[in-house]
């Protein structure tokens, strides 16, 4: 049996998973309308490439990735784009963001798509394909998967990189990964094989928490039938054991250094749902337009649905049967989820679970008392922080101190708030402190940029002044020379004039030197990586142009 390691802390909240695993994954009904946000992934929001009124096919690109960290957005079904405007999205801010509204025509007609032969694609082409298919991490972070697909280096003491497939699903109530593994284990294994190929990983570990015996059995069977050398490892059930860094620790004993990524130690981690959608993208050429979602909590029949991205949350919940005392809906689990800010919000790629909540299910918090420094939070913190100290400094807005106490290592898992006997919303304080620190850093950067631009402008003005003086001097000199040459040998130049000339000359040279010093780096000395990136961008541009001309009516130039 594979050796498993431990990490500090963790909690054991009631799992509440069995309610929603009684029935197989159902296909959700085609909704009346879909609202598809253009920002469904970490990084830059996608840029709309369709216009209101346009007819789109299922799987058609409607939002193109922009920038290095971004992903694509597709039409989840065929129909007409009725609007591209700002609508409230699932976000703790409750603020609106750019969305496309799609009215389905009921035909559900696919755009032309076909499998790709990934073994004969270059790494770059493979990444581009996944980026075009809008594949992002479905475990919750929605980090674009294409960026994670670079050949792995070897971890210390090993010959080959390690690929980890995350089927831990540690948060209570959520069962979408569990059901996916039970029902579509073969597809996940195929996806895993593709990832292993793309990463050239030697070792493949599939980690599943031991409270999902059916999923473990299904995955073991699929792996055995495929004959691939993957290992399905049952890991102890503990929250937050599904956090990528912690699962890596449990399975390999390696600790991802603070501020680093798993890839820096030769490990890469993908969620099972992501792995499944990678299989769909490569074996079928399908973009990511639907996902499995758990609908649970205060509903008549908690169950899992396969749902189109953009489906209104409440329309989906209704299919599981509304109950009258439901007072709010939570997207995600009870530990890290977000309360939906409005009844109109729709499902995104990140939505793994919808919990209909009632006062009986999630009772309101008892009154908050001061911190008594009991350190129950420190005992359960999976990152070994001192939450009581962090809270103290965040509360006092002493952000320098919060950073000294490793604020940014906090994974916001909520274990500290969960155990706090004073019911202090600790994580809210950390989130507040983090966003303040980030905003301040951004402000500082903007100020530094403004300073440089201002200094450069002063320099430029000075240089222009000198250049003018130089021209004027040259003109005078020419005039003088002409005067000297024509009538009679003139008197030798007077000393003061001479010194002025020299001074000007010196100043010009000085300015030139300074100008040369601040010259921006040009594009001649590029690393191969940068060149590859440029090539990638060029290729993407070409492809978008091609796509735009073939499927999308070009916006009229006027």
């Amino acid at each position, binding site marked *: 049996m594979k050796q498993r390691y431990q990490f500090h802390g963790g909690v054991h909240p009631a799992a509440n998973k069995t309610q929603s695993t009684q029935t197989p994954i159902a296909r959700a009904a085609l909704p009346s309308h879909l609202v598809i946000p253009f920002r469904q992934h970490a990084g830059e929001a996608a840029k709309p490439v369709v216009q209101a009124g346009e007819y789109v096919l299922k799987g058609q690109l409607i939002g193109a990735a922009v920038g290095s960290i971004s992903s694509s957005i597709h039409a989840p079904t065929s129909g007409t784009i009725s609007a591209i405007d700002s609508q409230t999205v699932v976000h703790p801010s409750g603020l609106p*963001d750019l969305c496309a509204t799609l009215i389905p025509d009921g035909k559900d007609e696919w755009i032309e798509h076909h499998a790709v032969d990934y073994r004969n694609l270059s790494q770059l082409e493979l990444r581009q394909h996944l980026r075009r298919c809008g594949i992002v991490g479905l475990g919750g972070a929605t980090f674009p998967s294409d960026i994670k697909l670079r050949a792995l280096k070897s971890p210390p003491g090993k010959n080959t990189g390690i690929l980890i497939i995350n089927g831990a699903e540690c948060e209570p109530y959520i069962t979408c990964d569990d059901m996916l593994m039970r029902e579509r284990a073969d597809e996940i294994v195929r996806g895993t094989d593709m990832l292993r190929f793309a990463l050239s990983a030697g070792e493949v570990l599939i980690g599943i928490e031991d409270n999902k015996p059916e999923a473990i059995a299904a995955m073991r069977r699929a792996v055995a039938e495929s004959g691939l050398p993957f290992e399905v490892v049952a890991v102890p059930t503990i929250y937050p054991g599904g956090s990528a860094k912690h699962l890596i620790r449990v399975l390999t004993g390696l600790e991802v250094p603070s501020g680093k990524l798993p890839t820096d130690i030769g490990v890469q981690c993908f969620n099972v749902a992501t792995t499944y959608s990678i299989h769909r993208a490569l074996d079928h050429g399908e973009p990511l337009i639907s996902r499995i979602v758990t609908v649970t909590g205060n509903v008549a029949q908690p169950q899992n649905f396969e749902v189109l991205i953009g489906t209104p949350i409440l329309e989906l919940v209704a299919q599981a049967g509304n109950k009258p005392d439901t007072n709010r809906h939570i997207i995600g689990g009870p530990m890290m989820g977000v309360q939906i800010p409005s009844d109109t919000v729709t499902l995104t790629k990140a939505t793994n679970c919808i919990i209909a909540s009632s006062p009986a299910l999630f009772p309101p918090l008892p009154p908050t008392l001061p911190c008594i420094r009991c350190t129950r939070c420190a005992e359960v913190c999976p990152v070994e922080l001192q939450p009581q100290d962090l809270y103290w400094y965040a509360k006092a807005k002493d952000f320098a101190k919060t950073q000294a106490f490793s604020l940014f290592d906090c994974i916001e898992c909520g274990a500290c708030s969960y155990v706090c006997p004073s019911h202090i919303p600790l994580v809210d304080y950390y989130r*507040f402190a983090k966003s303040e620190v980030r905003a301040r850093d951004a402000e500082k950067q903007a100020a530094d940029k403004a300073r440089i631009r201002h200094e450069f402008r002063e320099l430029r003005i000075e240089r222009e002044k000198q250049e003018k003086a130089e021209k004027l001097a040259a003109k005078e000199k020419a005039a003088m020379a002409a005067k000297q040459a024509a009538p009679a040998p003139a008197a030798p130049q007077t000393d003061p004039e001479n010194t002025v000339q020299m001074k000007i000359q010196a100043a010009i040279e000085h300015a030139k030197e300074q100008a040369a010093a601040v010259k921006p780096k040009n594009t001649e000395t590029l690393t191969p990586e940068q060149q590859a990136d440029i090539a990638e961008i060029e290729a993407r541009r070409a492809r978008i142009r091609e796509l735009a001309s073939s499927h999308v009516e070009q916006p009229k130039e006027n």
Partner: protein
Amino acid sequence: MFEALLAMSAIAIVLGAVLGYSAIKFRVEGNPLADKIDAILPQTQCGQCGFPGCRPYADAIANGTAEINMCPPGGEEGIHKLADLLGVEFKPFGAGVEPKPKAVAFIDENTCIGCTLCIQACPVDAITGAAKQMHTIIAAECTGCELCLAPCPVDCIIMLVSEEKVSNWKWKYPMYALSPAR
């Protein structure tokens, strides 16, 4: 008596030599205090402090000729930071000097006549355009100093307060009552 005098003089000479040596050895070029002050200032280069830019204001504070509460874009937090750095008391903003919400300039392109006056006024080169050509603000570079508003002969520049968006939203300070929420 004599020994004491001798000892004191010896100590004085030694310490003086050490001080003199350190003054040469650890000499710092420029004015580090002004640099530190300048690093705190928001670099809007708006001149609301009465100095032609942030650096001159920093120099003035360093020389002790300017108060620390004259920079509205820096906000009260800026004053607090300056007070901490200089070891002086916090001073609130005077009457009429108050920070405004962060904004960027916007040129109404239909009205702009292409006179370049705003381009010349912009302290951070955040306006593009040429004579008789329409001008436009590079919003990412604009510090919101408002120096372009006055020179515009057709008043085509307005300040747009930056909106809160999903991308720049900040978590609020948690407010929880100690008493039961009933």
